[in-house]
């Protein structure tokens, strides 16, 4: 992790986060931003490996930054750092392409642990988010709900299995044990689920834009 974007409007928290990030990734170069506008400018100039994005910002939503990053720098990992723990806030961010989320008020060690895990490719997944993902893909697989020329992104049986177990309240390590899979494999499934969620959402958004005539063919 070399270049890290830190988008946070509260100065104290930003400083605290910066210290935390430096502790987890000592070699990193941190670019700070307090507004969506600044962050978007930074994205055009610097190539990031990781972006820690707050959602509620004075000039907009961090989701826009996640989207911009996803489009211009697909390799960059966007992680939402927020005070909102409800899936009404988190799910759109995940759809936009966020790789995971961190709840700000958690203890320093816990956040450090989560950041480390995510950098290793183990995103978090809560039961309520899992339920949202399940119902989202269930709607997608119903042909009458899906536009005709919409590419159909579907989950594999294994991915579904993992999601269902998460939705029932099992933790990822528990599921690994239940399915006799390594921790790494389970994490891959979760990553794959996030990716498919993003792909499907973007296709949906593009079609919607087309329908509204935003793009002329």
């Amino acid at each position, binding site marked *: 992790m070399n270049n890290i974007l830190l988008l946070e409007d509260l100065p104290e928290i930003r400083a605290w986060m910066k210290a935390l990030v430096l502790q987890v990734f000592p070699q990193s170069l941190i670019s700070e931003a307090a507004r969506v506008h600044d962050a978007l400018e930074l994205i055009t100039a610097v190539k990031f490996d990781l972006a820690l994005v707050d959602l509620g910002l004075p000039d907009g939503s961090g989701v826009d930054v996640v989207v911009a990053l996803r489009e211009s720098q697909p390799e960059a990992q966007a992680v939402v750092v927020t005070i909102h723990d409800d899936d009404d806030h988190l799910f759109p961010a995940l759809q936009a392409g966020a790789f995971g989320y961190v709840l700000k008020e958690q203890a320093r060690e*816990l956040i450090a642990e989560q950041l480390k895990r995510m950098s290793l490719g183990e995103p978090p997944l809560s*039961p309520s988010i899992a339920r949202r993902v399940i119902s989202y893909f269930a709607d997608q697989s119903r042909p009458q709900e899906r536009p005709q020329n919409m590419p159909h992104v579907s989950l594999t049986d294994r991915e579904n299995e993992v999601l269902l177990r998460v*939705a029932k*309240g*099992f*933790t990822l*390590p528990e599921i690994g044990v239940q399915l006799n899979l390594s921790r790494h494999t389970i994490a891959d499934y979760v990553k794959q689920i996030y990716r498919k969620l993003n792909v499907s959402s973007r296709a949906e958004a593009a079609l919607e834009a087309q329908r509204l005539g935003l793009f002329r063919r």
Partner: protein
Amino acid sequence: MLIRLLLLLRLAFLAALAASAALSGATPLVLSQAMSVNSSAAHFPEGAAAQAVRLPDDWTQSRPRYDGGAWYRVGFDLPSGAPSNEPMALYLARVCGALDVELNGQRIHSDARNAAPATRNCQQPRWVSLPSPLLKAQGNVLDLRMQASALQRVASRHRVGALSELHIGRDSELAGEHASRLFRTVSGVQIVGASVLLVGCLVLLLYAFHRRETPLLHFGGLLVGWAVVSALAWWPDLPLDSKLVEVLVCSGFAVVAAFAVQFLLSHAGLRSRPISIGLALQLPLVPASLWWADPNRIFAIASAWHALFALEVFATMGLALVITWRRQRDDFVSTLLIVAGTAGVLLFELATQVQLLPAQRVPVLQYAMPLVFFAVGARLVRQFARTLRAAEESRASLENRVKEITADIERNFTQLSELRVEQVTEKERKRIAADLHDDLGAKLLTIVHTSESERISTLAREALEEMRLSVRGLTGKPVRLADALADWRAETVSRLGQANIEADWRGPTEEIEHLLPARAYVQTTRILREAVSNIIKHSGASHCKVRSSVGERDFGMLVQDNGKGIPMELDGKLDRGHGMSSMKHRAKQLQGQCLVESGPGYGTVIRLTLPL
């Protein structure tokens, strides 16, 4: 007693015998032979050569083309045995012309006003009293002068000169005959005519209120016109010139025919400008053609007009019939009957006029046409009633529809306003939640991460969690119990796992469909979180068992650890620092209970029961 009864019976028998003898001797004389001379002289021309004629005498037969006066002479003897004190009378069933009567040389009757040849009062039977002083027992001479018109000078065969048989008898014998004849030919026609007039006026009145129903106007005009024309026929002694009356009657028929044609057309829903114009032109043409015509050609011209009228009516009736067949087949039979009846009556009348049929004793046309009119009127009334009913029904259905729609609108409005209230409430909740997060949340977060004191940052973190749960309780929808259990399980297991405490969580295996109110979800989350925090912080346990169960009406949860238990305070209550009282309080708020069993060295068991 018996004798008196017998006497009475015998008296009654004798009385009956006497009455029948009187009747049998009182047969009225019927004179069907007369001597006749064409003359308009004031008295029977004694010198002239009289001809014998049979009565009834129809001038078209006996003296065609003759126009003027004619004298008739009959002689008669009084019926033998007639009591002389009873008044005698001459009764003539039909006299078409102005009549003067002389008995034994004395004038006893004169239709004085009709001095000129006039053929009116043709329907009026005549009744002439024979004064007894003038009567002789035998050899009475009765002279009658009739001034009448030739067929050529009248518009209808019904008004050509004619004299019926002479009936001479006692008043009482002839009165009945006269009265019934008078009723048949005059009063009855008057009654029917008045009825037609009345109905016509009603129809016109109806039209006045329903101006769009032109058939009503035409039908009303037809009826009124008919009543007037038929009044001209029976009205006694019109103070008008004979020719003028003929012209008027014929013109009256033109008006009636025009109304009939227009009625049939408009009733069939047709409109034709040429026909209307033609009918309008015909109206002045008819009187003009008669007025300036040769007086001897009036009958020919009038007959031609009448034939034309009949033809027009026939043609329109045929058209109406075709249209009815096409459009309202269920009305066809009644229409056909009416049309056939009209055609029959008109043909009958035409046949009478051209002498294919003998003249009738009763004015057939003036009885039959009103029947047709009443039939048509009944049909119109039925149609009107039908239309009215249809209108009523459609109005009722419209009213119902309006009611339904109004109810719909009201319901929708209620729903909308409820939705709006919900939306506004939801929006407000979200705003409050966002404000809390942005302001209070940010401040608490800053405290969490900047405080030097571990205790303060823990308190701030807990406050933040509290705030978040409160906000969720504020905005939340009911949560499926299964989902709630999953959330609790994930959180509990992962927290215990991070604290290196072995977690053993088992819940109901079957599908749970129960819903948990947002508040109950939040409170239970707090209780469970508190319990887990206690275990992690204070118990020193290495193992934690959680069991959840769903019953019929309640839901239970058991959290058991193998730690060192909670120490008792001095007053015998469990340690407040472990938040036991707040857990219990929260359970109580949800109408449930939270029991804590603990003893040093035995670990702690928390039993939570909540109603569903």
